[in-house]
C-alpha cells in the first residue's frame, strides 16, 4: 500500500506521540489535579500556600538557585574550553572525549558517594592532608559548622559529574562551524580570542541553547548528590519534594513542589532561549 507522502510523517511520529501522551501528559494532568486539589474537594491553592509558607522553602529555593548559579556558569566555561581544545586536536580526539565523558556513565547517587568518600571524616582528603602533616587528626568537613565546604563539595561533585553532557553537545556544535570562517577571520585580523567571541560563540548559539537548557533544568532537579554529601544540612527543592511525598506522605504538597520546580525550569528555559536567540534572518 502506498501511503500519501504528506500523511506518512505524521503516521510515523504517532507511536511516540501516543507514548508521550500516555506516560507524560496523563501523569502531568494527574499531578496538576493533586497540586491544585484540596481536602474538601474542588480547586484551591492550599497546597502551594502550604509548601511556600513552610520555613524550609525559602532556604531550599535559595540553595537550589545558588547551586545552579555557581555550577552552571563554571560548567559552561569548562565545557567551552574543553570543547575548543578537543576540536583543535588532530589525533586521539575520540580517546580524550571518551575519557572526559566517563562521569556521564555514573548515576548521580554514585557520583555523590564517590565525592563523599573524598570529603568524609575517614576519606581521601583527610588521609592526604594528614599524610602531608597539614592536620594532625581527621576533620569532619561536611557538618553544619562548615556550610561553605558542604556547598563547595556538592558543587564540585556536580561539575565533575555533569560538565560532559554540555561538552558533548558543544563539541558537536563546534564541529559544524566551517573552517573557512576562521581562515577569513585570520586574514581579516581577528585574534584567537576575537575569533572565539565573534565567530565561535555566536555561531554556537543553537548548541549553547540546547546545552544550557538541558543543564539548567537538571540543575534545578539536583537531588541525589545533595542527599549523599549534604543530607539534611543543605535542603534543596527536589529533596523537599521527596520528603513531602515519602516522609510526610503529603502527595498534594509534593505535587505542588514539583509544579513549582517545573515553572522555574520553564522560566529559565525561556530566558536562555531569549538571550541566545539567533536574530531573524541570520541563518546559522
Amino acid at each position, binding site marked *: 500500500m502506498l501511503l500519501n507522502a504528506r500523511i506518512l510523517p505524521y503516521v510515523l511520529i504517532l507511536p511516540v506521540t501516543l507514548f508521550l501522551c500516555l506516560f507524560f501528559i496523563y501523569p502531568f494532568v494527574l499531578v496538576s489535579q493533586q497540586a491544585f486539589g484540596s481536602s474538601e474537594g474542588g480547586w484551591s491553592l492550599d497546597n502551594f500556600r502550604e509548601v511556600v509558607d513552610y520555613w524550609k522553602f525559602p532556604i531550599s529555593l535559595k540553595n537550589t538557585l545558588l547551586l545552579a548559579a555557581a555550577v552552571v556558569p563554571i560548567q559552561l566555561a569548562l565545557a567551552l574550553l574543553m570543547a575548543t581544545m578537543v576540536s583543535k586536536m588532530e589525533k586521539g580526539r575520540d580517546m580524550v572525549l571518551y575519557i572526559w565523558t566517563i562521569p556521564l556513565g555514573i548515576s548521580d547517587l554514585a557520583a555523590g558517594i564517590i565525592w563523599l568518600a573524598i570529603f568524609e571524616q575517614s576519606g581521601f582528603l583527610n588521609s592526604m592532608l594528614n599524610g602531608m602533616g597539614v592536620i594532625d587528626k581527621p576533620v569532619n568537613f561536611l557538618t553544619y559548622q562548615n556550610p561553605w565546604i558542604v556547598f563547595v563539595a556538592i558543587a564540585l561533585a556536580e561539575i565533575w559529574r555533569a560538565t560532559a553532557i554540555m561538552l558533548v553537545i558543544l563539541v558537536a556544535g563546534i564541529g559544524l562551524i566551517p573552517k573557512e*570562517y576562521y581562515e577569513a577571520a585570520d586574514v*581579516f585580523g581577528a585574534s584567537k580570542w576575537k575569533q572565539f567571541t565573534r565567530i565561535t560563540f555566536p555561531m554556537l548559539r543553537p548548541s549553547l541553547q540546547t546545552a544550557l537548557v538541558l543543564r539548567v533544568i537538571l540543575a534545578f532537579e539536583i537531588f541525589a548528590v545533595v542527599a549523599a554529601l549534604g543530607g539534611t544540612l543543605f535542603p534543596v527543592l527536589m529533596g523537599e519534594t521527596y520528603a513531602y511525598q515519602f516522609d510526610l506522605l503529603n502527595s498534594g504538597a509534593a505535587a505542588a513542589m514539583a509544579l513549582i520546580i517545573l515553572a522555574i525550569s520553564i522560566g529559565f528555559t525561556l530566558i536562555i532561549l531569549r538571550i541566545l536567540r539567533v536574530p531573524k*534572518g541570520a541563518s546559522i
Partner: protein
Amino acid sequence: MAEIQIKNVAKSFGAYQALNNINLTIADQEFMVLLGASGCGKSTLLRIIAGLETATSGEVWIGGKRIDHLSPKDRGIAMVFQNYAVFPHLTVFENIGFGLRMQKLPNDEVTQRVERVAGLMHIEMLLKRYSGELSGGQRQRVAVARALAMEPDVILMDEPLSNLDALLRMEMRAELKGVLAESKTTAIYVTHDQVEAMSMADRISVMHEGNIVQAASPIEVYRDPAAKFVASFIGNPPMNFLPATPAGAGKWQVSGQTFDGPNTDKAGLQFAIRPEDMAPAEHGLVATAKIVEPLGAHLLVTCQIDEAQFRVILDSDTVVKPGQTLTLAPQSDRVRWFDPETTLAVA
C-alpha cells in the same frame, strides 16, 4: 608599492610534494592568475602567500618586506574565499566592516568605507540583511567588498566565481576586473577556468604538478605555449599535435608534407597548430572528417590525420560531411614545435 616576490617556495604534505621550488615575481598592481587543474598546487601557493599555510622552504616578500613569518593580518593582504566565508550571523554591513572593526577604526570611518565599497559592488541596498537571505552572487559581492574595504596592498582570490552559474560568472568576471583595476591593488587570482584566466589576467601562471610551467601574458600563453602541457591545457579545443621527422636542415616532414621548422639535430619533434589556424587549401595535410559540429559562429570538425585525432575550426559556411577528405593548410606563422622528450617548446 606592493610587488610580490616568491623565492624558492616549496611545500610538502608528508611524502606528497605539493609545490616544487616556485619562483615568481608579481609586479605592483598586476593582475596575476594562477591557472591549473585541481591538485596542481595553485591554491596551496595562494594560501602560503596568505599565511594560511606555511611553506616547507622558501621566502615570500611583499613590497620589499619579507612576510612569510608574519601572521595573515600583518601581511597587508585581503582574501576572497571560494565558498565566500561570509559570516552568517552578521549583517552584510558587519561582514564588510569585519576587518575594519578588528583594526578598531572609528565608527564613522567604518561606515564611510563600508558604504563606499558597497556602492562599488552594487550592494548598498543589502547592508542590513543577513547572508542567509542573499543569493550566491550577492554573497560573492559581499566577500569582494569585505576584501576591498581593507584597502589592502594585495587581494588574493581563491576560485571566487566557481560557485556561480555560468551567466553570473561572466557578468562578475568583467565587473571584478574593472573594480580591481580601479582599486590599484596587486591581485592574485586562482582559477581552473581558462576563459576566466584569459579574460581577466595581466599575466597567467600556468601550474602543473607543483610547478609553474609558464608565466606570461594571456596571448603569449595562448600563442606561444612554453610546453606541451600548456598547449593542451589552454584553448578549447586545445592545440593539435602531429609527429614530425627530420627532412634536412630546418625542414621537417609531417604526414607526408614538408614544413620549415627549427634547425636542430633532434631525431623527432612534434608539430603543433591551433584548430582555428588551419584552412582548406589545395596543398596541405590530408585529413578525413569524422565528426562535424556546427557551433553557430563556426564549424568544429574532428578529423583523423594518419592515426592522430585532429580538430579544425572552419567557417560556418563550409560544407563538410563525415567521411569526406579535407586538405588543410596550416597558417605558417602559427605553427609551433615541441620536443617529445622534454615536452618543451623548440624555437
